């Protein structure tokens, strides 16, 4: 099987994936995944493009000194680093605590079904 297309692996599928898809735990997993990643993705992209537009069209504002030679532009740029690190940490803890347990539960159920058909 090693070179076959991925979904051709089981000759006769023993799992009804459409049924799995409508089960409450899968519906919950999908909802929890999307309700996190979509808003966060929109949020960081909006913040990134806001920053890009400022850097592109608001030179005077970005050049405003804050501490010594460090200006608003540099602080906002470093802010992009901080927000990237923060979102990364946030997502990982969310995925570990909320997504992984449900995914593991469904995986367990599916493996039980497959084992029963062997």
């Amino acid at each position, binding site marked *: 099987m*090693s*070179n*076959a*297309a*991925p*979904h*051709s*692996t089981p000759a006769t*599928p023993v*799992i009804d*994936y*459409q049924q*799995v*898809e409508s089960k409450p735990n*899968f519906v919950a*997993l*999908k909802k929890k*995944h*999307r309700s996190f*990643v979509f808003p*966060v*993705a929109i949020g*960081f*992209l909006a913040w*990134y*493009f806001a*920053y*890009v*537009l400022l*850097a*592109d*069209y608001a*030179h005077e504002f*970005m*050049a405003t000194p804050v*501490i*010594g*030679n*460090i*200006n608003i*532009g*540099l602080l906002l*740029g470093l802010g*992009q*680093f901080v927000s*990237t*690190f923060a*979102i*990364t940490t946030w*997502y*990982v803890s969310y*995925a570990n605590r909320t997504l*992984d347990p449900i*995914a593991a539960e*469904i*995986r367990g159920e*599916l*493996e039980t079904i497959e084992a029963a058909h062997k």
Partner: protein
Amino acid sequence: MSAGVVLAAAADPGVGNPVLNISIFGAFVAVTLIVVLRASRNNKTAADYYAAGRSFTGPQNGTAIAGDYLSAASFLGICGAIAINGYDGFLYSIGFLVAWLVALLLVAELMRNTGKFTMADVLSFRLKQGPVRLAAATTTLAVCFFYLLAQMAGAGGLVSLLLGINDRVGQSVVIAVVGILMIIYVLVGGMKGTTWVQIIKAVLLIAGAGIMTVWVLAIHGFNLSTLLGAAAELGGEGVLSPGLQYGLTDLSRLDFISLALALVLGTAGLPHVLMRFYTVPTAKEARRSVVWAIWLIGLFYLFTLVLGYGAGALVGADTIRAAPGGVNSAAPLLAFELGGPVLLSIISAVAFATILAVVAGLTITAAASFSHDVYASVIKKGKPSPGMEVKVARITVVVIGILAIIGGIGVQGQNIAFLVALAFAVAASANLPTIIYSLFWKRFNTRGALWSMYGGLGSAIFLIAFSPVVSGSETAMIQGADFSWFPLNNPGIVSIPLGFILGWLGSISQRTLENPVIAAEMEVRSLTGHGAEKATDH
């Protein structure tokens, strides 16, 4: 330290000692070759050759991703851009970093759960195998080719600085040597050997940049403001705020938005980055690798900020521009300024190793895509004779290596950060729309995928061909001709939305739905990791 002393010291930028440079680089090649040979002993199956038996841990793979991603463009290109254009150079690194959130949140784990070796595995999962694989392989090869050109251009520039070779013939010979070494690494080591080269290189690069960063900060009393002041004194107040490079005209501002779009959306469509997600055993490890990669890459870009301004303050923009290798020589010149010929040799060897490692990573991706997607899946309909797939991959490695050498000789002297930005634009236009749609939109179908991939790729390349990059400007690839009409250097602002629109249009314009059973299977597998490819045991 006065500017006069600095200029005097760097007045002879044919710097360093070529013998020392070559021996340090030779040592790197020798060590990595031994590692590659040891790592390659278990390369038997396709999973071993393409995905290193899926046996790397998250932290190892994350370091390798950083190694793959922190190319010569990041190191030499961004340092140089900051040294000369100040703040505008910094904008590159922000786009390159933020882009990783797209990969982390939307792509990495879902790809790992549904794919096997290549991007096309995921894209063709619930669509028509043949045409979609062929399209995905085409875009993969195109992105790899652009990226390879950038790395090869970097190799040429670096060498002119290190060995004092300024003539084209000499540089061409060096590019050929890089290409041949890369072919050997990938032929012998496969993905496992390549991954180890990436890891070693990432550690050396980040450590080297870290040491130089501390050094530069120490000279300025560990005060960022003092460093910025010194850079501004030599380079003008303009270096501290945005606008020096992109703020000149309305057109250049628009060009900058185009670039920013390509940078942030390109990463998650880079085939050589996507392929790295298959070298780990589970989606959780894929997530851990991205987290490691984000921290390492972020840290490195903070270093380049200091190094770029440091080069501006200690070496000076005029000296950098005048040096052989131009903008790309800022980091090596700074190393020379700080630690003399020895540090220059070490940093240059690291930069050279960087190019070698990235080129190896790109080559194995392109080879896997050709042999797995085109040869095994399309030509042989998924049933290649045993061992043939890996054999075809090895032949492809040699072919790509030769093409990269020829192309690299052709693009000498181009700014590498900029060439990489083009590769990102192609990746974001041709790959990302289809990846996002096929992971998140059930209605997406084969026609949408084909329109999006070919449309995104075609429009990006078409616009580049008629942009000032290719003809009609001082730095154009083809001198003495002017057939440009597209005013921007980066096509992203047009081609990326086009890729998304075409994918949507293609899908809704056709009533036939793809097989809903397979679509359901893909969704369940992508989110739960059920049935994902497991690690092979040795």
